[in-house]
């Protein structure tokens, strides 16, 4: 092999190497950008699970309100409801909102794109519910009606505050 062709070979290989490295870096960058928030294997199933989870929290709040309003609810019911909300609220940010489950991506989704555009703010809103539901659980254990009522209000504010910013009801 002549020196010239050897040089050419080195140049060509270098070009290929640099180009492919560039492509690789670009590809990694793109993947990283997309994976800022993970997607799900089955977005439709996640939306279904999300709605079931939210509904279970609503049912629990309803149960607790029956006690708060003195309409036949019991402290035991409050305790169960508070535990259910606490468990459900911990799932929200980690697993119920993958990036491909927003309005327009999945039929029937009520999740606004702001969730993923402002993820830290969304995470904060979810964390607020975790904290509030923990406090509601403690209040339920304590059994003092006024404290339960106050913490019930705090949980409600967490729900509503998040719905104000991040949810668009279908109807």
């Amino acid at each position, binding site marked *: 092999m002549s020196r010239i062709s050897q040089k050419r070979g080195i140049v060509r290989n270098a070009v290929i190497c640099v180009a492919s490295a560039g492509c690789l870096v670009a590809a990694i960058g793109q993947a990283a950008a997309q994976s800022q928030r993970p997607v799900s294997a089955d977005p439709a199933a996640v939306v279904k699970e999300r709605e079931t989870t*939210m509904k279970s*929290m*609503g*049912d*629990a*709040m*309803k149960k607790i*309100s029956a006690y*708060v*309003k*003195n309409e036949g609810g019991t402290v035991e019911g409050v305790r169960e409801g508070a535990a259910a909300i606490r468990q459900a609220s911990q799932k929200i940010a980690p697993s119920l909102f993958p990036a491909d489950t927003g309005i327009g991506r999945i039929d029937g989704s009520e999740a606004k794109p702001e969730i993923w555009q402002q993820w830290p703010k969304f995470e904060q809103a979810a964390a607020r519910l975790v904290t509030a539901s923990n406090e509601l659980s403690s209040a339920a254990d304590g059994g003092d*009606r*006024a404290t339960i*009522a*106050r913490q*019930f*209000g*705090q949980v*409600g*504010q967490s*729900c*509503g*505050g*998040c*719905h*104000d*910013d*991040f*949810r*668009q*009801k279908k*109807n």
Partner: protein
Amino acid sequence: MASWLLRLGVPLALAAGGVAPSMAQTAGDDPVKRGEYIFDAAGCLGCHTESKEAPRLAGGRALKTPFGTFYGPNITPDPETGIGGWTDEDFIRALREGRSPDGTAYFPVFPYTSFRHLTDQDLRDLKAYLDAQPAVSKPNRPHDVSPPFGWRFLLPAWQALFLEDGGLSPEPGRDAQWERGRYLVQAAGHCGECHSPRNFLGAMDHGRMLAGSADGPEGKPVPNITSDSEKGIGNWSPGEIAFMLEIGMMPDGDFVGGGMNEVVENSTSRLTAEDREAIAAYLLTVPPGG
């Protein structure tokens, strides 16, 4: 029906550091205290404060509408950038006729179409309350509205077309609770501004009052809150409506959103239980529209 939480001795201080509902509007001899109640009933805080972290009432809150983005102005007593130095008459003209002290017309995103029904006494009390708030120097941000809606010189024509007579006349066969509810919904609370459909010029469709809107704030749908049992809230009990206004929970355990939570937090949770019941009583008589 009493306010459950208040009956338990729990002031519904839902907002951080919130205050217990003050006395009813007619009570008390301190105009500032009375004005605070009107201020809460009208929910002024939301549109005139940029964010929870921003200086209170110093303006800058973006309001996206189908006509463009408006920015709520500074209503602190700052003489340069706020409403310091306004007379009571200036204030009443602004809230009833939608005109600033120099005669310039306001865009109806400022709901003077509803506030014009407020009584003189309530407007003067509200001004007394605003005058007592800390002055903040913060210049107003210009609105960002597309033509022709941004053409301020057209506003007097709009006002001539759509501003109805002020004051709510008594209706035969209605009791004081209903009257109070109507006043809170139509005048102070200006509920119809979001919950009623608008015509192409942005005027409320009074024939379909509270029948919901396809493009409310931010162009998003706002629900029907008439007595329609299918589309509206006709199948809610008065207690369920009052409880939603107090805490944001709907009969199915779900919590309001889309801006309504802010209304609950800044406004309806701070009213007296009697006033929330009055709103409920009135809403259940609003004919189905749409």
